[in-house]
Protein backbone atom coordinates (compact mmCIF):
# COMPACT_ATOMS: atom_id res chain seq x y z
CA UNK A 1 0.00 0.00 0.00
CA UNK A 2 1.23 3.48 -0.82
CA UNK A 3 2.70 5.40 2.08
CA UNK A 4 1.28 8.84 2.56
CA UNK A 5 3.23 11.58 4.17
CA UNK A 6 1.90 14.32 6.36
CA UNK A 7 4.15 16.78 8.16
CA UNK A 8 6.71 14.03 8.70
CA UNK A 9 7.81 13.57 5.12
CA UNK A 10 10.23 10.85 6.12
CA UNK A 11 10.76 8.20 3.51
CA UNK A 12 13.09 5.27 3.86
CA UNK A 13 16.14 5.95 1.74
CA UNK A 14 19.82 5.16 1.77
CA UNK A 15 20.82 8.82 1.92
CA UNK A 16 23.75 9.80 4.07
CA UNK A 17 21.60 12.06 6.22
CA UNK A 18 19.23 9.17 7.06
CA UNK A 19 22.19 7.38 8.60
CA UNK A 20 23.09 10.21 10.97
CA UNK A 21 22.31 9.89 14.66
CA UNK A 22 18.92 11.57 15.29
CA UNK A 23 20.28 13.38 18.35
CA UNK A 24 22.99 14.98 16.24
CA UNK A 25 20.45 16.02 13.59
CA UNK A 26 18.08 17.49 16.18
CA UNK A 27 20.82 19.47 17.92
CA UNK A 28 22.34 20.68 14.64
CA UNK A 29 19.04 21.77 13.11
CA UNK A 30 17.94 23.41 16.35
CA UNK A 31 21.28 25.23 16.58
CA UNK A 32 21.18 26.46 13.01
CA UNK A 33 17.55 27.61 13.39
CA UNK A 34 18.50 29.63 16.47
CA UNK A 35 21.62 30.81 14.66
CA UNK A 36 19.46 32.22 11.83
CA UNK A 37 18.48 35.04 14.17
CA UNK A 38 22.10 36.10 14.56
CA UNK A 39 22.93 36.35 10.86
CA UNK A 40 22.59 39.95 9.86
CA UNK A 41 23.47 39.99 6.15
CA UNK A 42 21.71 38.80 3.02
CA UNK A 43 24.99 37.26 1.80
CA UNK A 44 25.13 35.27 5.04
CA UNK A 45 21.63 34.01 4.33
CA UNK A 46 22.58 33.19 0.74
CA UNK A 47 25.40 31.01 2.03
CA UNK A 48 22.98 29.22 4.37
CA UNK A 49 20.51 28.84 1.50
CA UNK A 50 23.17 27.14 -0.61
CA UNK A 51 24.01 24.92 2.34
CA UNK A 52 20.34 23.98 2.86
CA UNK A 53 20.02 23.10 -0.86
CA UNK A 54 23.16 20.98 -0.55
CA UNK A 55 21.56 19.13 2.39
CA UNK A 56 18.26 18.70 0.53
CA UNK A 57 20.09 17.14 -2.40
CA UNK A 58 22.09 14.99 -0.01
CA UNK A 59 18.79 13.83 1.55
CA UNK A 60 17.69 12.69 -1.95
CA UNK A 61 14.56 14.82 -1.64
CA UNK A 62 12.71 16.49 -4.49
CA UNK A 63 12.87 20.29 -4.64
CA UNK A 64 9.11 20.28 -5.38
CA UNK A 65 8.53 18.54 -2.03
CA UNK A 66 10.59 21.22 -0.32
CA UNK A 67 8.46 23.98 -1.76
CA UNK A 68 5.33 22.04 -0.85
CA UNK A 69 6.60 22.06 2.72
CA UNK A 70 6.35 25.84 2.59
CA UNK A 71 2.56 25.64 2.13
CA UNK A 72 1.68 25.70 5.86
CA UNK A 73 3.70 28.88 6.40
CA UNK A 74 2.85 30.51 3.07
CA UNK A 75 0.23 32.80 4.60
CA UNK A 76 2.58 33.84 7.38
CA UNK A 77 5.37 34.35 4.87
CA UNK A 78 3.26 36.50 2.55
CA UNK A 79 1.75 38.52 5.38
CA UNK A 80 5.15 39.25 6.95
CA UNK A 81 6.81 40.08 3.64
CA UNK A 82 3.99 42.42 2.55
CA UNK A 83 3.84 44.06 5.95
CA UNK A 84 7.57 44.76 5.92
CA UNK A 85 7.48 45.86 2.30
CA UNK A 86 4.71 48.45 2.70
CA UNK A 87 5.01 49.58 6.28
CA UNK A 88 8.74 50.02 6.85
CA UNK A 89 9.67 53.70 6.96
CA UNK A 90 12.66 54.89 4.91
CA UNK A 91 13.66 56.06 1.47
CA UNK A 92 10.61 55.67 -0.83
CA UNK A 93 11.42 53.91 -4.11
CA UNK A 94 7.83 53.37 -5.32
CA UNK A 95 4.40 54.60 -4.21
CA UNK A 96 0.86 53.77 -5.20
CA UNK A 97 -2.11 55.45 -3.46
CA UNK A 98 -1.38 55.15 0.26
CA UNK A 99 1.12 52.31 -0.20
CA UNK A 100 4.79 53.13 -0.15
CA UNK A 101 7.66 50.78 -0.82
CA UNK A 102 10.93 51.80 0.76
CA UNK A 103 14.44 50.49 0.13
CA UNK A 104 14.62 49.57 3.83
CA UNK A 105 11.29 47.71 3.39
CA UNK A 106 12.64 45.70 0.45
CA UNK A 107 15.75 44.83 2.47
CA UNK A 108 13.75 43.78 5.56
CA UNK A 109 11.17 41.80 3.52
CA UNK A 110 13.93 39.86 1.74
CA UNK A 111 15.70 39.33 5.04
CA UNK A 112 12.60 37.93 6.79
CA UNK A 113 11.50 35.86 3.79
CA UNK A 114 14.95 34.26 3.66
CA UNK A 115 14.89 33.57 7.38
CA UNK A 116 11.46 31.88 7.26
CA UNK A 117 12.35 29.89 4.15
CA UNK A 118 15.60 28.69 5.67
CA UNK A 119 13.82 27.75 8.86
CA UNK A 120 11.41 25.67 6.80
CA UNK A 121 14.18 24.13 4.64
CA UNK A 122 16.31 23.01 7.58
CA UNK A 123 13.36 21.49 9.44
CA UNK A 124 12.37 19.81 6.17
CA UNK A 125 15.80 18.18 6.01
CA UNK A 126 15.36 16.95 9.58
CA UNK A 127 11.89 15.46 9.08
CA UNK A 128 12.70 14.07 5.61
CA UNK A 129 15.64 12.10 6.93
CA UNK A 130 14.43 11.09 10.40
CA UNK A 131 11.53 8.78 11.19
CA UNK A 132 9.03 9.85 13.83
CA UNK A 133 10.29 7.33 16.30
CA UNK A 134 13.91 8.37 15.71
CA UNK A 135 12.80 11.94 16.29
CA UNK A 136 11.11 11.10 19.57
CA UNK A 137 13.99 8.87 20.69
CA UNK A 138 16.44 11.59 19.80
CA UNK A 139 14.31 14.20 21.50
CA UNK A 140 14.03 12.05 24.61
CA UNK A 141 17.78 11.63 24.71
CA UNK A 142 18.42 15.34 24.15
CA UNK A 143 16.10 16.35 27.00
CA UNK A 144 17.23 13.49 29.26
CA UNK A 145 19.33 15.82 31.51
CA UNK A 146 15.97 17.20 32.67
CA UNK A 147 15.45 13.93 34.55
CA UNK A 148 17.59 15.50 37.27
CA UNK A 149 14.71 17.86 38.02
CA UNK A 150 12.29 14.88 37.79
CA UNK A 151 10.90 15.88 34.42
CA UNK A 152 9.21 12.79 32.91
CA UNK A 153 11.29 12.76 29.70
CA UNK A 154 10.33 9.20 28.65
CA UNK A 155 6.62 9.83 29.09
CA UNK A 156 6.79 13.12 27.19
CA UNK A 157 8.67 11.43 24.33
CA UNK A 158 6.13 8.57 24.24
CA UNK A 159 3.29 11.09 24.26
CA UNK A 160 4.80 12.87 21.24
CA UNK A 161 5.36 9.56 19.46
CA UNK A 162 1.73 8.49 19.98
CA UNK A 163 0.46 11.91 18.89
CA UNK A 164 2.50 11.56 15.69
CA UNK A 165 1.17 8.07 15.05
CA UNK A 166 -2.40 9.24 15.42
CA UNK A 167 -2.07 12.10 12.93
CA UNK A 168 -2.80 9.93 9.85
CA UNK A 169 -5.51 8.01 11.75
CA UNK A 170 -7.33 11.19 12.74
CA UNK A 171 -6.80 12.65 9.29
CA UNK A 172 -8.48 9.62 7.70
CA UNK A 173 -11.26 9.75 10.25
CA UNK A 174 -11.86 13.45 9.53
CA UNK A 175 -12.10 12.65 5.81
CA UNK A 176 -14.56 9.84 6.54
CA UNK A 177 -16.75 12.01 8.78
CA UNK A 178 -16.59 14.82 6.23
CA UNK A 179 -17.83 12.49 3.48
CA UNK A 180 -20.59 11.14 5.74
CA UNK A 181 -21.72 14.65 6.68
CA UNK A 182 -21.55 15.83 3.05
CA UNK A 183 -23.81 12.94 2.04
CA UNK A 184 -26.26 14.20 4.68
CA UNK A 185 -26.30 17.67 3.21
CA UNK A 186 -23.60 19.54 5.14
CA UNK A 187 -21.81 21.95 2.80
CA UNK A 188 -18.28 22.66 3.97
CA UNK A 189 -17.24 24.95 1.12
CA UNK A 190 -20.26 27.19 0.67
CA UNK A 191 -21.62 30.30 2.31
CA UNK A 192 -20.04 33.13 4.24
CA UNK A 193 -16.98 32.70 6.44
CA UNK A 194 -19.24 32.40 9.50
CA UNK A 195 -21.44 29.79 7.80
CA UNK A 196 -18.38 27.81 6.75
CA UNK A 197 -16.96 27.93 10.25
CA UNK A 198 -20.32 26.75 11.63
CA UNK A 199 -20.49 23.91 9.09
CA UNK A 200 -17.29 22.47 10.56
CA UNK A 201 -19.03 21.78 13.89
CA UNK A 202 -20.59 18.51 12.65
CA UNK A 203 -17.06 17.46 11.71
CA UNK A 204 -15.24 18.56 14.83
CA UNK A 205 -17.65 17.19 17.43
CA UNK A 206 -17.63 13.54 16.28
CA UNK A 207 -13.91 13.78 15.57
CA UNK A 208 -13.26 14.98 19.10
CA UNK A 209 -15.50 12.33 20.66
CA UNK A 210 -13.84 9.59 18.60
CA UNK A 211 -10.41 10.89 19.56
CA UNK A 212 -11.30 10.63 23.26
CA UNK A 213 -12.68 7.14 22.70
CA UNK A 214 -9.51 6.10 20.87
CA UNK A 215 -7.32 7.57 23.61
CA UNK A 216 -9.27 5.60 26.20
CA UNK A 217 -8.90 2.33 24.28
CA UNK A 218 -5.23 2.97 23.59
CA UNK A 219 -4.58 3.55 27.29
CA UNK A 220 -6.21 0.18 28.08
CA UNK A 221 -4.22 -1.59 25.35
CA UNK A 222 -0.97 -0.03 26.61
CA UNK A 223 -1.70 -1.09 30.16
CA UNK A 224 -2.49 -4.60 28.94
CA UNK A 225 0.97 -4.69 27.33
CA UNK A 226 2.65 -3.91 30.62
CA UNK A 227 3.04 -0.15 30.35
CA UNK A 228 3.15 1.61 33.69
CA UNK A 229 3.68 5.39 33.86
CA UNK A 230 7.08 6.18 35.35
CA UNK A 231 8.30 2.57 35.32
CA UNK A 232 11.75 2.02 33.80
CA UNK A 233 11.68 0.48 30.31
CA UNK A 234 14.41 -1.04 28.17
CA UNK A 235 15.26 0.58 24.81
CA UNK A 236 14.81 -1.39 21.62
CA UNK A 237 16.45 1.13 19.30
CA UNK A 238 20.14 1.83 19.53
CA UNK A 239 21.70 5.27 19.03
CA UNK A 240 25.43 5.65 18.50
CA UNK A 241 27.44 8.65 17.40
CA UNK A 242 29.67 7.70 14.48
CA UNK A 243 32.47 9.39 12.53
CA UNK A 244 30.02 10.67 9.95
CA UNK A 245 28.08 12.45 12.73
CA UNK A 246 31.26 14.20 13.87
CA UNK A 247 31.97 15.19 10.28
CA UNK A 248 28.55 16.83 9.96
CA UNK A 249 28.95 18.61 13.31
CA UNK A 250 32.21 20.06 11.97
CA UNK A 251 30.55 21.02 8.65
CA UNK A 252 27.66 22.79 10.37
CA UNK A 253 30.01 24.75 12.63
CA UNK A 254 32.11 25.70 9.60
CA UNK A 255 29.06 26.95 7.65
CA UNK A 256 27.74 28.88 10.65
CA UNK A 257 31.10 30.62 11.17
CA UNK A 258 31.37 31.36 7.44
CA UNK A 259 27.88 32.90 7.30
CA UNK A 260 28.85 35.26 10.13
CA UNK A 261 32.21 36.07 8.53
CA UNK A 262 30.51 36.94 5.24
CA UNK A 263 29.08 40.03 6.96
CA UNK A 264 32.58 41.38 7.51
CA UNK A 265 33.72 40.97 3.92
Amino acid at each position, binding site marked *: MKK*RSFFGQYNFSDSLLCKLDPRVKIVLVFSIVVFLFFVKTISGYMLLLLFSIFLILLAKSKISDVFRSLAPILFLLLFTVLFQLFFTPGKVVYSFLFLKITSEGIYLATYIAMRLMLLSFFTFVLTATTSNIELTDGFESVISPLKIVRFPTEDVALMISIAMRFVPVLFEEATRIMKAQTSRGVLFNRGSLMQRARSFLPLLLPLLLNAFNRADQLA*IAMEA*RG*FVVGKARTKYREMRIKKIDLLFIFLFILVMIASIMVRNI
Partner: protein
Amino acid sequence: MIRFKDVSFAYKEGKWAVRHINFVVNKGEFVSIIGGNGSGKSTIARLSDGLLLPQEGSVFVDEMDSRAKKDEFLIKEKVGIVFQNPDNQFVGTTVEEDIAFGLENIGIERVEAKKRIQQISSLLGIEKYLHDSPSYLSGGEKQKIAIASVLVMQPDYLVMDEITALLDPVSRKEVLNLVHSIAENKNIGVLYITHITEEVINSDKVLVLHNGEKINEGIPAVILQDMKLLRSAGVASLPSIIISEDLRKHGIIDTSFIDEEGLVGLLCSN
Protein backbone atom coordinates in the same frame (compact mmCIF):
# COMPACT_ATOMS: atom_id res chain seq x y z
CA MET B 1 -4.99 -21.62 34.57
CA ILE B 2 -7.27 -18.58 34.47
CA ARG B 3 -10.04 -19.19 36.99
CA PHE B 4 -13.16 -17.05 37.42
CA LYS B 5 -14.68 -17.80 40.81
CA ASP B 6 -18.17 -16.37 41.25
CA VAL B 7 -17.12 -13.09 39.63
CA SER B 8 -19.43 -10.07 39.49
CA PHE B 9 -18.60 -6.62 38.18
CA ALA B 10 -20.58 -3.40 37.73
CA TYR B 11 -19.49 -0.21 35.96
CA LYS B 12 -22.33 1.63 37.71
CA GLU B 13 -23.52 0.80 41.18
CA GLY B 14 -26.41 -1.62 41.14
CA LYS B 15 -26.15 -2.38 37.43
CA TRP B 16 -24.18 -5.59 37.00
CA ALA B 17 -22.21 -5.97 33.77
CA VAL B 18 -21.37 -9.57 34.70
CA ARG B 19 -22.87 -11.61 37.52
CA HIS B 20 -21.74 -14.84 39.25
CA ILE B 21 -19.38 -15.96 36.50
CA ASN B 22 -17.50 -19.22 36.98
CA PHE B 23 -15.21 -20.90 34.48
CA VAL B 24 -11.67 -22.10 33.93
CA VAL B 25 -9.22 -21.80 31.04
CA ASN B 26 -6.36 -24.28 31.24
CA LYS B 27 -3.05 -23.98 29.41
CA GLY B 28 -3.42 -25.35 25.89
CA GLU B 29 -7.21 -25.13 26.10
CA PHE B 30 -9.35 -23.11 23.66
CA VAL B 31 -12.37 -21.68 25.45
CA SER B 32 -14.88 -19.52 23.60
CA ILE B 33 -17.39 -17.08 24.99
CA ILE B 34 -20.35 -16.26 22.81
CA GLY B 35 -23.07 -13.70 23.39
CA GLY B 36 -24.86 -10.71 21.93
CA ASN B 37 -24.23 -7.02 22.47
CA GLY B 38 -24.14 -6.00 26.14
CA SER B 39 -23.84 -9.57 27.36
CA GLY B 40 -20.65 -8.80 29.30
CA LYS B 41 -18.12 -10.45 26.97
CA SER B 42 -15.64 -7.56 26.87
CA THR B 43 -15.95 -7.06 30.63
CA ILE B 44 -14.84 -10.67 31.11
CA ALA B 45 -11.90 -10.06 28.76
CA ARG B 46 -10.77 -7.09 30.84
CA LEU B 47 -11.31 -8.91 34.12
CA SER B 48 -9.16 -11.81 32.99
CA ASP B 49 -5.88 -9.86 32.96
CA GLY B 50 -6.55 -7.44 35.77
CA LEU B 51 -7.53 -4.42 33.65
CA LEU B 52 -10.74 -4.53 35.69
CA LEU B 53 -10.97 -5.95 39.18
CA PRO B 54 -14.01 -7.92 40.32
CA GLN B 55 -16.29 -6.34 42.90
CA GLU B 56 -17.43 -9.77 44.03
CA GLY B 57 -15.66 -13.11 43.65
CA SER B 58 -12.10 -13.52 42.38
CA VAL B 59 -10.10 -13.97 39.21
CA PHE B 60 -7.00 -16.14 39.54
CA VAL B 61 -4.20 -16.46 37.01
CA ASP B 62 -2.02 -19.43 37.93
CA GLU B 63 -3.34 -19.01 41.45
CA MET B 64 -2.38 -15.32 41.61
CA ASP B 65 -5.34 -13.18 42.64
CA SER B 66 -5.85 -10.28 40.20
CA ARG B 67 -6.55 -8.02 43.18
CA ALA B 68 -3.12 -8.62 44.74
CA LYS B 69 -1.12 -5.48 43.95
CA LYS B 70 2.20 -7.38 44.02
CA ASP B 71 1.12 -9.71 41.19
CA GLU B 72 -0.49 -7.05 39.00
CA PHE B 73 2.45 -6.81 36.59
CA LEU B 74 3.11 -10.55 36.48
CA ILE B 75 -0.52 -11.25 35.58
CA LYS B 76 -0.28 -8.84 32.64
CA GLU B 77 2.84 -10.66 31.48
CA LYS B 78 1.09 -14.01 31.70
CA VAL B 79 -2.17 -12.93 30.05
CA GLY B 80 -1.97 -11.19 26.69
CA ILE B 81 -5.05 -9.47 25.38
CA VAL B 82 -5.97 -8.49 21.83
CA PHE B 83 -8.86 -6.10 21.26
CA GLN B 84 -11.40 -5.61 18.50
CA ASN B 85 -9.95 -2.56 16.78
CA PRO B 86 -6.22 -2.89 16.06
CA ASP B 87 -5.98 0.79 15.12
CA ASN B 88 -6.61 1.68 18.75
CA GLN B 89 -3.82 -0.58 20.01
CA PHE B 90 -0.83 0.56 17.99
CA VAL B 91 1.74 2.63 19.80
CA GLY B 92 4.72 2.49 17.46
CA THR B 93 5.05 4.36 14.19
CA THR B 94 6.33 1.21 12.49
CA VAL B 95 5.26 -2.40 12.90
CA GLU B 96 8.63 -3.35 14.40
CA GLU B 97 8.48 -0.56 16.97
CA ASP B 98 4.94 -1.51 17.89
CA ILE B 99 5.87 -5.15 18.47
CA ALA B 100 8.86 -3.99 20.53
CA PHE B 101 6.71 -1.79 22.80
CA GLY B 102 5.53 -4.61 25.09
CA LEU B 103 9.06 -6.04 25.28
CA GLU B 104 10.43 -2.67 26.37
CA ASN B 105 7.76 -2.53 29.07
CA ILE B 106 8.68 -5.91 30.53
CA GLY B 107 12.41 -5.15 30.46
CA ILE B 108 13.60 -7.36 27.59
CA GLU B 109 17.04 -6.32 26.33
CA ARG B 110 17.68 -5.35 22.70
CA VAL B 111 19.38 -8.57 21.50
CA GLU B 112 16.70 -10.83 22.94
CA ALA B 113 13.95 -8.46 21.71
CA LYS B 114 15.33 -8.53 18.16
CA LYS B 115 15.41 -12.34 18.24
CA ARG B 116 11.85 -12.56 19.50
CA ILE B 117 10.53 -10.05 16.95
CA GLN B 118 12.23 -11.97 14.16
CA GLN B 119 10.73 -15.25 15.35
CA ILE B 120 7.22 -13.93 15.80
CA SER B 121 7.12 -12.02 12.52
CA SER B 122 8.30 -15.09 10.67
CA LEU B 123 5.67 -17.25 12.43
CA LEU B 124 2.87 -14.83 11.51
CA GLY B 125 4.24 -14.02 8.06
CA ILE B 126 4.59 -10.29 8.69
CA GLU B 127 8.35 -9.82 8.12
CA LYS B 128 7.78 -7.71 5.03
CA TYR B 129 5.76 -5.14 6.99
CA LEU B 130 8.23 -4.63 9.84
CA HIS B 131 9.37 -1.21 8.61
CA ASP B 132 5.92 -0.06 7.45
CA SER B 133 3.49 2.11 9.33
CA PRO B 134 0.70 -0.08 10.78
CA SER B 135 -1.86 2.56 9.80
CA TYR B 136 -1.72 1.70 6.11
CA LEU B 137 -2.06 -2.08 6.29
CA SER B 138 -5.24 -4.05 5.65
CA GLY B 139 -7.56 -5.05 8.52
CA GLY B 140 -6.32 -8.66 8.57
CA GLU B 141 -2.67 -7.60 8.51
CA LYS B 142 -3.31 -5.07 11.30
CA GLN B 143 -4.92 -7.73 13.47
CA LYS B 144 -1.98 -10.08 12.84
CA ILE B 145 0.34 -7.33 14.05
CA ALA B 146 -1.80 -6.77 17.14
CA ILE B 147 -1.56 -10.52 17.84
CA ALA B 148 2.21 -10.48 17.23
CA SER B 149 2.61 -7.53 19.62
CA VAL B 150 1.02 -9.57 22.39
CA LEU B 151 2.46 -12.96 21.46
CA VAL B 152 6.02 -11.63 21.42
CA MET B 153 5.73 -11.14 25.20
CA GLN B 154 5.37 -14.95 25.41
CA PRO B 155 2.19 -15.05 27.48
CA ASP B 156 0.77 -18.27 28.86
CA TYR B 157 -2.78 -17.20 28.02
CA LEU B 158 -4.30 -15.15 25.21
CA VAL B 159 -7.57 -13.29 25.50
CA MET B 160 -9.10 -12.37 22.14
CA ASP B 161 -11.88 -9.83 22.44
CA GLU B 162 -13.90 -9.96 19.19
CA ILE B 163 -10.72 -9.72 17.14
CA THR B 164 -12.46 -10.60 13.87
CA ALA B 165 -15.45 -8.30 14.25
CA LEU B 166 -14.08 -5.71 11.81
CA LEU B 167 -12.68 -8.16 9.26
CA ASP B 168 -14.03 -9.53 6.00
CA PRO B 169 -14.87 -13.28 5.90
CA VAL B 170 -11.57 -14.28 4.25
CA SER B 171 -9.39 -12.35 6.71
CA ARG B 172 -11.60 -13.58 9.56
CA LYS B 173 -10.96 -17.20 8.66
CA GLU B 174 -7.24 -16.55 8.24
CA VAL B 175 -6.93 -14.87 11.64
CA LEU B 176 -9.02 -17.55 13.37
CA ASN B 177 -6.91 -20.35 11.86
CA LEU B 178 -3.82 -18.49 13.00
CA VAL B 179 -5.11 -18.27 16.58
CA HIS B 180 -5.93 -22.01 16.61
CA SER B 181 -2.51 -22.92 15.27
CA ILE B 182 -0.76 -20.69 17.84
CA ALA B 183 -2.80 -22.20 20.68
CA GLU B 184 -1.91 -25.73 19.56
CA ASN B 185 1.77 -25.17 18.78
CA LYS B 186 2.64 -23.00 21.74
CA ASN B 187 0.43 -24.66 24.33
CA ILE B 188 -1.25 -21.36 25.13
CA GLY B 189 -4.63 -21.17 26.84
CA VAL B 190 -7.02 -19.09 24.71
CA LEU B 191 -10.12 -17.26 25.83
CA TYR B 192 -11.81 -16.41 22.55
CA ILE B 193 -14.66 -13.92 22.71
CA THR B 194 -17.02 -13.53 19.79
CA HIS B 195 -20.61 -13.06 18.68
CA ILE B 196 -20.06 -15.08 15.49
CA THR B 197 -21.27 -18.66 16.03
CA GLU B 198 -19.13 -20.21 13.26
CA GLU B 199 -15.98 -19.16 15.11
CA VAL B 200 -16.60 -21.34 18.18
CA ILE B 201 -17.01 -24.67 16.33
CA ASN B 202 -13.43 -25.82 16.93
CA SER B 203 -13.26 -24.73 20.58
CA ASP B 204 -12.72 -27.13 23.44
CA LYS B 205 -15.47 -25.47 25.43
CA VAL B 206 -18.12 -22.80 24.81
CA LEU B 207 -19.68 -20.44 27.35
CA VAL B 208 -22.93 -18.70 26.43
CA LEU B 209 -23.53 -15.28 27.97
CA HIS B 210 -26.73 -13.30 28.23
CA ASN B 211 -27.25 -10.07 30.17
CA GLY B 212 -24.01 -10.59 32.07
CA GLU B 213 -24.83 -14.13 33.18
CA LYS B 214 -23.53 -17.45 31.98
CA ILE B 215 -26.57 -19.33 30.71
CA ASN B 216 -24.78 -22.45 29.56
CA GLU B 217 -21.40 -24.06 29.14
CA GLY B 218 -20.36 -27.14 27.21
CA ILE B 219 -18.71 -28.61 24.16
CA PRO B 220 -19.59 -26.96 20.80
CA ALA B 221 -21.34 -30.08 19.48
CA VAL B 222 -23.94 -29.75 22.25
CA ILE B 223 -24.15 -25.98 22.68
CA LEU B 224 -24.45 -25.17 18.98
CA GLN B 225 -27.33 -27.59 18.46
CA ASP B 226 -29.44 -25.69 20.98
CA MET B 227 -31.04 -23.10 18.71
CA LYS B 228 -33.33 -21.85 21.45
CA LEU B 229 -30.41 -21.20 23.75
CA LEU B 230 -28.48 -19.30 21.08
CA ARG B 231 -31.55 -17.27 20.14
CA SER B 232 -32.07 -16.27 23.76
CA ALA B 233 -28.40 -15.22 23.91
CA GLY B 234 -28.91 -12.99 20.89
CA VAL B 235 -26.64 -14.88 18.52
CA ALA B 236 -27.42 -16.62 15.26
CA SER B 237 -27.52 -20.38 14.88
CA LEU B 238 -25.30 -22.11 12.37
CA PRO B 239 -26.84 -22.42 8.88
CA SER B 240 -26.03 -26.17 8.91
CA ILE B 241 -28.02 -26.60 12.15
CA ILE B 242 -30.99 -24.60 10.84
CA ILE B 243 -31.11 -26.67 7.64
CA SER B 244 -30.58 -29.92 9.57
CA GLU B 245 -33.48 -29.07 11.88
CA ASP B 246 -35.78 -28.36 8.91
CA LEU B 247 -34.77 -31.61 7.25
CA ARG B 248 -35.34 -33.46 10.51
CA LYS B 249 -38.84 -32.03 10.83
CA HIS B 250 -39.59 -33.33 7.34
CA GLY B 251 -38.19 -36.73 8.24
CA ILE B 252 -35.42 -36.54 5.63
CA ILE B 253 -32.58 -36.95 8.13
CA ASP B 254 -32.57 -37.92 11.78
CA THR B 255 -29.57 -36.05 13.10
CA SER B 256 -28.25 -32.46 13.16
CA PHE B 257 -24.86 -31.35 11.91
CA ILE B 258 -22.77 -28.46 13.12
CA ASP B 259 -20.45 -28.79 10.13
CA GLU B 260 -21.69 -28.23 6.59
CA GLU B 261 -19.47 -31.00 5.19
CA GLY B 262 -21.17 -33.62 7.36
CA LEU B 263 -24.65 -32.52 6.28
CA VAL B 264 -23.72 -32.34 2.59
CA GLY B 265 -22.02 -35.73 2.84
CA LEU B 266 -25.14 -37.35 4.33
CA LEU B 267 -27.48 -35.76 1.77
CA CYS B 268 -25.26 -36.84 -1.12
CA SER B 269 -25.00 -40.41 0.17
CA ASN B 270 -28.81 -40.56 0.38
